[in-house]
């Protein structure tokens, strides 16, 4: 056992998979440059020396390197692509959505695309184009698996499961959760470290995780919002409100079994999302809950999400934009009182 942050856990996970399976390689911008950073958030730091020729630094060409990952995967390799910031997935999305996600179906089930795309998201003082919550743009794409990792344990386990999966898997990470130290440290970072077991383990790509059991209200969130939801639950406990916090974690497909068990128990649901409210993943989860467990709800589902605006730069507005523990707690109070 050792205590690790998400960046270190991902790094070890990638290294272990590369050692286990020589088809695994990494591709992306600034991921293996000597004297460089090991990617924008240090995840691949030091791996280029360990795995010569298998940490591939590309030109700034997201569409290109993503397409190459798709092609290499089709020919039997197991690429892990690194998107410096999730926002640049828009450039790569043609290859992901039109090629990676559809190859299997279009080919009548004869093609496999076992690739991983990792991308950090989150509003972090960088302004509108380095901040977006990108998961919503990919969760509705049949043929793509989408997960979001909020703890170091999950990050390593889901990374490994994704590498071993025969389908394209997108892993969303959060800039405030890497826990990277030193030069690349982020102001406002939240502790997402875990005890990491010594041996090999995987975490399934289709299961939510109950982070804190409770009986009065179910709070669903992922990435940074899972942490804020847990903080809100702590506050609420002191007030006598018992919130069950679920880290949704697998965003496509969504684990309605775990969610349903909780909804049947509490009858009240708050869904928290960092992206804008309109068109978010929370809308899909809300509809899914209504269809499956509507009869068990004692009050309408509540969403706590960001404003329907681009991410603002100035800290005052950025903090007002994004949900925080106080807003989540208030939504739970309001709902529990109904």
């Amino acid at each position, binding site marked *: 056992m050792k205590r690790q942050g998400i960046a270190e856990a991902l790094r070890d996970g990638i290294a272990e998979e590369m050692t286990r399976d020589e088809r695994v390689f990494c591709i992306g*911008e*600034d991921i293996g*440059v*000597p*004297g*460089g*950073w090991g990617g924008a958030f240090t995840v691949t730091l030091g791996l280029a020396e360990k795995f010569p020729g298998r940490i591939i*630094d*590309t*030109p*700034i*060409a*997201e*569409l*290109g390197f993503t397409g190459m990952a798709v092609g290499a995967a089709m020919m039997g390799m197991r690429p892990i692509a690194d998107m410096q910031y999730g*926002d*640049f997935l828009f*450039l790569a999305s043609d290859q992901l959505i039109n090629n990676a996600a559809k190859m299997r179906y279009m080919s009548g089930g004869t093609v496999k695309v076992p690739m991983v795309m990792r991308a950090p998201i989150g509003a972090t*003082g*960088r*302004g*509108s*184009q*380095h901040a977006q919550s990108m998961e919503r743009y990919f969760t509705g794409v049949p043929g793509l698996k989408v997960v979001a990792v909020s703890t170091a344990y999950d990050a390593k386990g889901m990374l490994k499961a994704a590498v071993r999966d025969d389908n394209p898997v997108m892993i969303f990470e959060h800039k405030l959760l890497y826990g990277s130290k030193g*030069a690349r440290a982020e102001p406002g970072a939240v502790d997402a470290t875990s005890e990491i077991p010594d041996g090999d383990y995987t975490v399934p790509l289709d299961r939510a995780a109950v982070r804190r059991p409770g009986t009065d209200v179910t709070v669903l969130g992922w990435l940074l919002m899972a942490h804020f939801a847990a903080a809100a639950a702590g506050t609420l406990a002191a007030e006598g409100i018992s919130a069950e916090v679920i880290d949704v974690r697998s965003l496509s497909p969504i684990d309605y079994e775990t969610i349903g068990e909780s909804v049947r128990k509490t009858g009240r649901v708050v869904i928290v999302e960092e992206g804008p409210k309109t068109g978010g993943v929370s809308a899909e989860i809300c509809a899914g809950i209504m269809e499956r467990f509507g009869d068990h709800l004692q009050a309408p589902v509540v969403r706590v999400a960001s*404003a*329907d*605006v*681009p991410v*603002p*730069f*100035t*800290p*005052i*507005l950025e903090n*007002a*934009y994004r949900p925080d523990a106080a807003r989540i707690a208030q939504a739970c109070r309001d709902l529990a009182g109904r």
Partner: protein
Amino acid sequence: MNGASAANPPALPDPQDRDFLLGLYGTMVLIREFEERVKFLFLEGTMPGTIHQCQGQEATATGVCAALHADDWITSTFRGHGHALAKGLTVQEMLDELFGATTGCCKGKGGSMHMGNMAKGMVPGIAIVAGGIPLAAGMALAFKMQRTQQVVACFFGDGAVAEGAFHEGVNMAAIWQLPVVFVCENNLYGASTRIDKVMKNPRISDRAAAYGFQGETVDGNDVLAVHAAARRAAEACRTGQGPVLLELLTYRRTGHSRRDACHYQAKDEREAWFSRDPITRFATQLLARGDITPADLDAIKARIDSQITQGVELAKQAPQPTLADLTTDVFA
């Protein structure tokens, strides 16, 4: 609507004129001192956000923008402070923006990576590498359709030429002979990656020939060479001979962003480029003329220093947005 002046643009000043040259020098010093102060404020922790700075690259922005008329336009990138100052944005509106104030050039909503002012011919910086290239071609298409005499100078880095957006944008500008000067600031690195790792042909201006238009490589640390090339390019654009690709060879003296220590830059390379610093070089040239003294240059720097100091004081007290500002400006 796009700021086109009705009359023919006024002639540009004589490039040998003493005041004009001192103006170029002043702009370069302004950019350097602004960036140094911002770096200090950032490291000190008073300034929020992230920063991408341009110390060492002052001659590119200065030389190009001095070749443009007031109603010409520029597009910029995440590394846009120098472009903004050279295009005439004020120290105050930029510092206010960096401090997230409503008096900033983008009301605190843009920040360092999106500096701009539509009233001054600068589109907010586009932080997606190469994202400004097709956009600038589109602006030039508008100028052509509107039959104005305007030109857009589109700034981007060496890293951008690997993106599809570069190739799509320059090709369309070429086939329709659009008035856009593509200004590639080749500082040898895209983030931590040196150009020789990511291009087989590192002569970026050669790309123009592949698409059938003019390209030129220029010493980007020689402000007069940059200026002369930019004048020729803008003139070509105005007479329907556009577009033009200018590759300006330069070097970033500071980190890519934030606290980057540049360990990927070789020591001898850094030293070689430091000895070609654009400001020191230009100062030497100016002093050799005989009609400019060290005291003249010192006075310029002193004036700029106090301007920036005053600007910082004001910016620290500038009005911050209220929550009502969160939802404004989304739609026109």
